[in-house]
């Protein structure tokens, strides 16, 4: 059909945004809007304007004025990505009495001005995009958002500092919280640390009070030694299936007196909490201040589960709280929102062969050193070599191990510089040893961080700028015999140096949890190539995700230190509290609907739907979509052989005419050529 014959039935307004020079710098906006006004008349365009900042209140008023005065029935805004400002302009239309869903926002910034340099080509593309938007908007229909109630409870996954902070914020506001933790106790990595930079206050001293608060809080249900298995539903109404692993302890009877782990004859190397430096029993709490106080029996190492005899713990338990027959328990909880604070794993320094970790006894990882230096740790806080007695006279601390390295992880782990400076201080303070810090760049961007750096320099730490090439025990001269030699180019001198030390500490980087991709899938959020979870907006919305009702906090979003994790925990909580207060939430009315008349009852769609939202009426022999369950992916729409299913907001008419619109320009060209 040639455009001329078509009879415009809608009154469309087109608004082209300059976005300062962001768009106008590349796209000739004036030309574009003029073109729209002249060439899209057949589609019903009666006005086209360009303006510096459409999203500004003045820009919005401009649109609203036209809606009122020119009786616009459709609005097309050509500006940034709909993911940024769709809501803004829809509300503007609403304000002027036009149904918000009769407004279409097309992106000529992210997908045009910002990615092209050829101005003519970019301007042509903008025209095409707009003509596509216009062609599409005509087929929009007035819609009302779906309103669903929000369940007041919140699920928080991960009992580290970020999760703890979020839990307390929400619980204190009077709303129920389920806190799920994989380990037997909450506390996370922070519970393992010795001192915290830059203030050097003891990690446990500031963390344990919070852990106790969580333990005692009436609004918090702790589900430790548990993991989330399945998440159903959608924002406001999630149904979460959780597996509570058997503790083999009757928590209602257990007093946490500790006799069981005193009496337990089975020693196990504790490679979790003590990072492999210390031992625990087969029945244990990870650390004295554990919350909850109840121990767990580790059924892989427990003699009873291996040999079928022992039961020492049971014999001595004063309250008969041991129950060897306990089974894993599957429970389901209803929540309205979810916070993921599952934290990080430590980079395995064995992967850097030239640093000899795992091969050379006195090369330690940062987590090992935290335990070594921790007064509650295996050495009672004495910094000694692997032999358990010798105090090192010289220590080398290597920054950026596995970080900022294309062979391992590209990113900067953010905490290593400050952590390494902290280590330097602790070694100085406790052993008086000579300390070398080997760094590429020192990064101390936060409050009081650089002052800390200054302090460490003042304490006499020797800084060598250079990424260490290798740590070896191959001595080249008597001076090196029996030492670890750190070989490095001192880049500020421009010469290779070999520095003999007694102990090497590797500041290994932070990595996403080994199962982060699986977790992301379980909760339906996206995960970067590295494995960090992706926030809705890197700057403006760092704790929300693309999935409504699922939030992220702490290192799960990317490497960060304790203050930053606490901030995110609190921020996520605040976002959710705001939601809960609303009692209900408006959902995009993007849903599929089935026209009973046309449905042949073939049931193809039933199996296609991932949310089982399509039910089949045996009586009428037709399928029906449950709008509450439907997420609007549209797969069924595309699949229906009878064309009986239509997807609101993404109907065939809308898309087909958008295609026409996008191609209009070259149709003209082709005609011109012909």
């Amino acid at each position, binding site marked *: 059909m040639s455009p001329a014959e078509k009879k415009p039935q809608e009154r469309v307004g087109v608004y082209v945004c300059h976005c300062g020079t962001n768009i106008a710098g590349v796209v000739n906006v004036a030309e574009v809007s003029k073109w729209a006004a002249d060439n899209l008349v057949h589609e019903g365009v009666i006005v086209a304007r360009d303006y510096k900042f459409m999203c500004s209140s003045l820009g919005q008023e401009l649109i609203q004025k036209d809606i009122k005065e020119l009786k616009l029935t459709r609005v097309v805004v050509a500006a940034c*990505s*709909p*993911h940024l400002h769709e809501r803004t302009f829809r509300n503007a239309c609403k304000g002027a009495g036009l149904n918000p869903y009769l407004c279409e926002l097309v*992106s000529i*910034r*992210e*997908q*045009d001005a*910002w*990615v*092209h*340099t*050829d101005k003519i*080509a*970019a301007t*042509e*593309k903008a025209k*095409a*995009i707009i003509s*596509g938007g216009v062609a599409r908007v005509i087929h929009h229909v007035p819609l009302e958002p779906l309103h669903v109630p929000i369940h007041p409870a919140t699920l928080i996954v991960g009992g580290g500092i970020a999760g703890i902070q979020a839990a307390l914020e929400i619980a204190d506001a009077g709303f129920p919280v389920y806190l799920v933790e994989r380990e037997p106790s909450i506390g996370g990595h922070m519970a393992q640390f010795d001192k915290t930079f830059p203030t050097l206050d003891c990690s446990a001293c500031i963390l344990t009070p919070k852990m106790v608060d969580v333990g005692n809080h009436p609004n918090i249900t702790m589900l430790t030694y548990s993991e989330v298995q399945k998440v159903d539903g959608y924002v406001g109404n999630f149904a979460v299936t959780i597996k509570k692993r058997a503790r083999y302890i009757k928590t209602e009877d257990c007093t946490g007196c500790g006799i069981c782990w005193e009496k337990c004859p089975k020693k196990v190397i504790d490679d979790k909490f003590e990072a492999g430096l210390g031992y625990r029993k087969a029945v244990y709490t990870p650390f004295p201040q554990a919350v909850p106080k109840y121990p767990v029996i580790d059924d892989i190492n427990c003699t009873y589960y291996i040999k079928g005899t022992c039961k020492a713990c049971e014999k001595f338990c004063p309250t008969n709280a041991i129950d060897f027959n306990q089974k894993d328990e599957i429970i389901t909880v209803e929540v309205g929102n979810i916070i993921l604070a599952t934290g990080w794993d430590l980079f395995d320094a064995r992967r850097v062969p030239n640093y000899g970790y795992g091969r050379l006894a006195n090369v330690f990882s940062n987590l090992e050193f935290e335990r070594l230096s921790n007064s509650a740790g295996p050495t009672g806080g004495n910094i000694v070599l692997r032999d358990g007695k010798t105090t090192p006279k010289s220590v080398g601390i290597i920054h950026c191990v596995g970080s900022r390295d294309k062979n391992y992880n590209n990113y900067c782990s953010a905490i290593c510089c400050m952590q390494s400076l902290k280590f330097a201080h602790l070694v100085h303070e406790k052993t008086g040893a000579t300390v070398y810090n080997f760094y590429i760049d020192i990064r101390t961007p936060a409050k009081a961080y650089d002052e800390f750096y200054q302090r460490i320099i003042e304490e006499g730490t020797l800084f060598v700028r250079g990424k260490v090439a290798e740590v070896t025990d191959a001595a080249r001269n008597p001076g090196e015999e029996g030492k670890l030699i750190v070989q490095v180019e001192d880049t500020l001198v421009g010469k290779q140096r070999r520095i003999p030390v007694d102990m090497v500490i590797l500041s290994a980087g932070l990595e996403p949890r080994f199962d982060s991709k699986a977790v992301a*899938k379980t909760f*339906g959020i*996206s*995960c*970067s*190539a590295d494995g960090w979870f*992706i926030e809705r907006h890197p700057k403006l919305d760092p704790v929300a995700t*693309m*999935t409504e009702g699922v939030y992220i906090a702490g290192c799960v979003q990317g490497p960060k230190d304790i203050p930053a994790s606490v901030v995110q925990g609190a921020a996520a909580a605040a976002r959710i509290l705001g939601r809960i207060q609303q009692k209900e939430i408006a959902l995009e009315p*993007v849903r599929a609907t089935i026209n009973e008349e046309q449905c042949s009852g073939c049931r193809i769609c039933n199996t*296609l739907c*991932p*949310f089982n939202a399509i039910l089949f009426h045996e009586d009428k022999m037709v399928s029906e979509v449950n709008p509450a369950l439907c*997420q*609007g*992916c*549209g*797969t069924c*729409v*595309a*699949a229906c052989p009878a064309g009986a299913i239509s*997807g609101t*907001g*993404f109907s*065939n008419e809308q*898309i*087909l005419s*958008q*295609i*026409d619109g*996008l*191609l209009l320009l*070259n*149709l003209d060209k*082709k005609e011109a050529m012909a």
Partner: protein
Amino acid sequence: MTDTPETKPFEPVIIGFTCNWCSYRAADMAGISRMKYAPNVRLIRLMCSGRLDPTFVFKAFAGGADAVLVSGCHPGDCHYSTQNYKAMRRFHLMQRVLTQMGIEPGRTKLLWASAAEGQIFANEITKFVEEVRLLGPLNWNKSAAPVVPVEVPAEEVQA
């Protein structure tokens, strides 16, 4: 470029379908990071690549597009759990039909890009445009008869 009209290389017009969750955001990411790519692709946002009805593709070709790009989340990452697999199956089926209709397989491309992969999205588009440029304009009359799919040597695409 200082091309006079006649020496100006053929600029293909490509319609691209993206899903709302991964590939459209990849395009946004490319924009936010100011990555440059060929301006020949015009995107249409669907909620999911699973929404892609083959008719859309036929329509695009009929409407004068020289090629069609279909993109979505990586297999396994679909926001709607598995719908992109369905898209994948449909795509290959569709490609066969198109070949019979006389449209080279090289004119359709399936691209997985996560929300973080702006760079990949940009590079792939530029590559695709080059490939289509080599195929030349889609000419219905000429290519009415079924054509044998022509493999374009990788290096020539590079050049």
